[in-house]
C-alpha cells in the first residue's frame, strides 16, 4: 500500500475522536475547506480506512413570483375573492390578473361562465397547490409538480456527506501516525542552503496516470509527405513548385497528348475561363503533333489548334511543371522532383477526391537508360519501406518505354503503385534536350491510405481533430 498523504493522516486523527462527522465540522477542526475534506475522505475510503457517504436531498425554493403569490394568494384566488356572486365578463376582465386567473378558476371549477356572465360555483376550497405554496416541505408530489410547472418554485439538490472511520482506520490511528509536515515543491532557499536534507519530502504515487497533454503537431499526412521529400532530397533531387493554373499547352500539348484525347474533355478536367498565350517556341510542339518534327516520329497527324492550347486548366498532374523546368534548363544533369496538389474532375467519395497530392520525379543525364529508371524506382520504394518491387509493361501518352512498378504489401499482395517511363522524344526534342529523361509519378494520397491504414480518402482532407492530435509523431509501420 502506498504511503498515506499527510492530509489523509490528519483526517483520520481527527475522525478517530468523532467516529462519524460531517465535512463542516471536520473542516473547521482541520483548518481546511469542506471540499478538501471530502477529497481526503474519498482517498481514505478507497483504502478502506474510512467510509464516505454521499446523500442527495431535494429541497424546494420559492421563485420571486412564488413569494409574491404566497403573500397575496394565487392569481385565481385573488380574483375569485374580488368578485361578487356573479359578475359580467367585461367587469371581470378589468382585474389585472384576470388573464391568468380566468383559466385557472375554470379549471378548478370555481366559476361558471354563461352568456358573458361569470357566476361563482361551489365554495372554492383551499387547494393542495395553495397549501404547498405556504409550506413546500409538507406538499404532495402532485402539488409540487403543479407549482414547478407554473414556475413558482425551483427544485434544488443538496448534497451532504457523512464521514465515518472504520475499524481499520481506528487501528491505524492507535498504532500511531507521523504527522510531521511534508514538503511539496522546494523553494530556492531550501535547495541552496541544503536545508532540504532535513525536510520530509512528500512522496508521489508513480502509478497514478498523469493528465494527457499533446504537443502542437504537423498533420500526419504532411509528415508522410515530408518523409517522401526527404528521401528524394537525400538522393540528390532538387525540388520544384509552381502555379496551380496551367495552360493546356504545358499541361497537355508539350507532353504530346493529342488535342482530341479524352482526358482533355470537360468531364475529366477542370477548365477555367482563362487563356494564356503559348510560349515562343510553340511551333516546335505544333510540328511534333502534326508530323513528328525532326525526329523519327510520324506525329499524330491532323491540324494542331493554337487556341485550344491557350485554354487554361487546374493542373491535372505536375508533369507540366516538370517539362517547363526542363525547357528552361535543358543541360544535364538534372534530378528534379515535386510533391503537389493536382486536380481531376471527380466527385468526392471514399476513394476519390477532386484534389489530391501527386509526387513526380525525373532524372535527365547523359547515359541514363531504362534499366536506371528501374534502379531509381527500386531504391525509392525501398526507402519508403517496400522491399519487394517488380515491374510490368504499362502505357502513358508521354513516355515510351513505360513501366508500372508493383510493390508487395502484406495482406494485399502485389499492389500497383504509380507509373514511370522515359519521356518520348517528341516531348523533349522541341526544347533541345538531348539526354533521355527518366520520369516517374505516384499518387501520394494512395500511399498514405496504404501506410496509415485508412479506408476513406476524405480523412486526409476533412480530418478529425482528435486523429491529428493522437497520431504519434514517430509512426510505427
Amino acid at each position: 500500500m502506498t504511503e498515506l498523504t499527510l492530509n489523509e493522516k490528519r483526517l483520520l486523527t481527527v475522525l478517530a475522536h468523532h467516529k462519524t462527522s460531517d465535512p463542516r465540522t471536520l473542516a473547521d477542526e482541520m483548518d481546511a475547506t469542506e471540499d478538501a475534506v471530502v477529497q481526503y475522505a474519498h482517498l481514505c475510503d478507497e483504502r478502506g480506512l474510512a467510509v464516505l457517504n454521499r446523500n442527495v436531498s431535494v429541497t424546494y425554493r420559492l421563485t420571486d413570483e412564488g413569494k409574491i403569490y404566497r403573500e397575496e394568494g394565487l392569481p385565481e384566488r385573488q380574483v375569485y375573492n374580488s368578485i361578487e356572486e356573479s359578475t359580467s365578463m367585461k367587469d371581470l376582465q378589468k382585474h389585472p390578473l384576470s388573464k391568468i386567473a380566468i383559466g385557472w378558476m375554470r379549471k378548478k371549477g370555481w366559476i361558471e361562465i354563461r352568456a358573458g356572465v361569470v357566476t361563482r360555483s361551489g365554495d372554492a376550497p383551499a387547494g393542495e397547490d395553495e397549501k404547498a405554496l405556504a409550506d413546500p416541505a409538507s406538499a404532495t408530489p402532485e402539488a409540487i409538480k403543479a407549482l414547478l410547472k407554473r414556475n413558482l418554485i425551483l427544485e434544488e439538490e443538496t448534497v451532504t456527506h457523512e464521514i465515518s472511520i472504520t475499524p481499520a482506520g481506528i487501528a491505524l490511528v492507535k498504532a500511531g501516525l507521523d504527522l510531521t509536515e511534508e514538503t511539496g515543491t522546494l523553494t530556492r532557499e531550501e535547495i541552496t542552503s541544503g536545508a532540504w536534507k532535513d525536510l520530509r519530502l512528500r512522496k508521489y504515487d508513480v502509478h497514478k496516470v498523469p493528465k494527457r497533454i499533446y504537443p502542437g503537431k504537423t498533420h500526419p499526412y504532411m509528415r508522410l509527405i515530408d518523409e517522401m521529400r526527404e528521401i528524394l532530397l537525400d538522393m540528390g533531387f532538387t525540388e520544384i513548385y509552381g502555379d496551380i493554373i496551367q495552360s493546356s499547352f504545358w499541361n497537355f500539348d508539350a507532353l504530346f497528348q493529342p488535342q482530341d484525347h479524352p482526358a482533355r474533355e470537360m468531364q475529366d478536367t477542370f477548365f477555367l475561363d482563362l487563356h494564356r498565350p503559348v510560349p515562343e517556341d510553340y511551333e516546335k510542339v505544333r510540328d511534333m503533333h502534326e508530323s513528328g518534327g525532326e525526329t523519327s516520329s510520324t506525329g499524330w497527324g491532323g491540324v494542331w489548334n493554337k487556341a485550344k492550347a491557350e485554354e487554361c486548366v487546374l493542373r491535372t498532374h505536375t508533369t507540366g511543371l516538370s517539362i517547363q523546368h526542363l525547357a528552361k534548363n535543358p543541360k544535364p544533369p538534372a534530378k528534379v522532383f515535386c510533391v503537389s496538389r493536382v486536380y481531376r474532375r471527380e466527385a468526392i467519395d471514399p476513394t476519390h477526391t477532386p484534389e489530391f497530392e501527386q509526387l513526380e520525379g525525373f532524372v535527365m543525364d547523359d547515359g541514363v537508360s531504362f534499366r536506371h529508371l528501374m534502379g531509381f524506382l527500386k531504391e525509392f520504394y525501398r526507402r519508403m519501406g517496400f522491399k519487394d518491387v517488380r515491374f510490368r509493361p504499362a502505357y502513358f501518352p508521354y513516355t515510351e518505354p513505360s513501366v508500372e512498378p508493383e510493390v508487395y504489401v502484406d495482406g494485399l499482395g502485389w499492389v500497383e503503385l504509380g507509373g514511370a517511363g522515359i519521356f518520348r522524344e517528341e516531348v523533349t526534342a522541341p526544347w533541345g534536350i538531348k539526354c533521355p529523361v527518366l520520369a516517374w509519378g505516384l499518387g501520394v494520397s494512395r500511399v498514405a491510405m496504404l501506410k496509415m491504414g485508412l479506408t476513406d480518402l476524405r480523412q486526409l482532407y476533412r480530418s478529425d481533430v482528435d486523429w491529428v492530435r493522437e497520431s504519434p509523431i514517430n509512426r510505427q509501420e
Partner: protein
Amino acid sequence: MAVITLPYRYLEELVGTDRETIMKRLPMIGADIEREFEDHADVEFFPDRPDLFSTAGVARAMRGFLGIEGGLSDYEVKPSGISFTVDKNLKDIRPFLGTAVIRNVSLGEEAIESLMSLQEALHWAVGRGRAKVAIGVHDLDAVTPPFRYLASEKKRTFVPLDFEKAMTLDEILKEHPKGCDYARLVEDFPLYPLIVDAEDEVLSFPPIINGELTRVTTETTNILLDCTGTDERAVRRAVNIICTAFAETGATIESVEIDGEQVPDLSPAERRVSVKECNTLLGVELDAASMAGLLRSMRFGAEPDGDEIIVQVPCYRGDIMHDWDIFEDVAIAYGYENFDAGLPQSFTIGKPHPVMKLMGTVRTIMAGLGLHEMMPFTLTNERVLFDRMQRERSDAVLHLTHPISEEQTVMRTDILPMLMEALQFNQHHELPQKIFTVGDVIENTETFQKVAAVSTHTDADFSEIYAIADALCRELGLDYSVQESEDPAFIDGRRGDICVDGKKVGVFGEISPDVITAFELGQPVAALELDLRAVPGRL
C-alpha cells in the same frame, strides 16, 4: 482501358497451348487480368494496342511471345473485283472510307459477340466514340456491288437494324437508340452520309446504324466491311485491325477498289532502327541478331543490316510512331524482369524549394505554439468563402467553368473559411481546438501562400490570438505594425490588420458570432490569417 473477354477454349485453340501457360505470361506483354472465371477471363489492354482487342489479336501476339510462331504474319490480299465510290460532297461531312471483303468467315455466337466487342473497343480507343472512326459490318451476299458512299437527302428511308419498318434518316436520329446516342455527330450537316448498293438498297447510315437488310448472322459466310470517319489514318488502322483479326481465324481478305486504289493494303511499313540507339536507351547490350530475334517474337519482321535492323511493322500496329516505340517492344520481349536494375553514377546535390521551406518553417512555428495542422481542400464555394464569413464576394476569385458539384465551384482566396469549416466538421469533439493551415490560395489568377489559425474554447479571445500573431510575425522576421481593422468577419473593436511597409498583409481578432453561428458553432473563436508574400527574403 478496354476490357476484353477471352474465352479459354478458343484462346487455347488459336495459341496452340494450355490456358495456364498463356495466362501466366499474359501480364508481361502489357495486360491487366481483371477477373478469371471458369471458362473465360476479363483482361484489360492499353488504349494504344487496339490490335489486342480481340481473342484472335491476343492469340497472334501470344504465339510470338511464347515462342510458338514468330515474325510477320503474312496476309495475302486478292482483289475482289468489287468497287466503291465516294461522293465528293462528303468532303466536309465525313470524307474518309475504308473497306474490305472478308470471305469464308465461320461465325458462331461467340465469334459474333467477339466481333461486336472488337467494334465497340475500336470505336472507343481509335474512333473517339465513333466521331473519328465508325465501323459497320455487312452480310455481303444480301447486297449487290458496286457500292456507293454518298451524301444523302435526309428524307431518304430504309429499315434500320432491330426495327421492322422503314424510317427517314431524320426519324432514325430521333427514334432509334443509336440515333439518339450519336445524332450530334451528323445533325448539323445539310446532307447525311449513306452507303448504298447497285440497286439503291441501303447498307448503312454511318456513323449511326446499319440496315436490317445486311444483318450479320451465324449463317453469314462473306462480309463487307465499311469504315468511315474524319481521320484517314485512324480509318485505315481500324480496317487493318479487323481484317487481320479475321485472317488469323482462317478467313480470306479481298480488296475493294476506291477511286483506282485497292484497299485495304495489309502490307507492313518499313523502318530502319539503330541497334546502338536501342541498347543505349534500354541499358542492355544486345547484338543485332538477338535484337532482331526479340522483335520477331513480337511479330515484327526483322533483319539485321550492319548496325541497323530493318523492321517490318505490321499494318495493325498503329502505335508505332517513333523508333522508340519499337524499342519498347524489344524491352517487353527481353522481359522487364530481366533488366539489371541499378542506379547511374550521376552526382547531384538536392535542394528543397524555397516555398516548401518557408511553409515548413511556418509549420514549425505554429506547432511550437501548440496548434495542430489541418489540410483542407483548396476548392470551395462562395457561400463558405464569403457569405458565411460576412464578407463581400470578391471579383478576384477563380471560378471553374464546369464544376462537378455546388460544393466545389471556386478556388479559395483565403484559408480562414476552410478552418471554420474544419471546426464545423469537428463540432462534436472536445475543446479546446487550436488548428492551423498553411498552403496555396489563388487571387487574380496568381498562386501564392497564406497561413491561417483558429482557436476555439470557452476563453478564446483577442489577447490570445494577438499573442500568437505577434509570435508568428516575430519568428518569421516580419517588421509589422497593427491598425484597427474593418474586416466584417471579426467583432468590431476586437480586430486588427497586420501591416508591413504600410500595406495590409494579415488580420486577427475575435470572430463575429454571426460567423460562428453560420458554421453551426457556439463557443468563442479567435483567428488570424497572414499573407506569406510579406515574409522577407521569400523566393
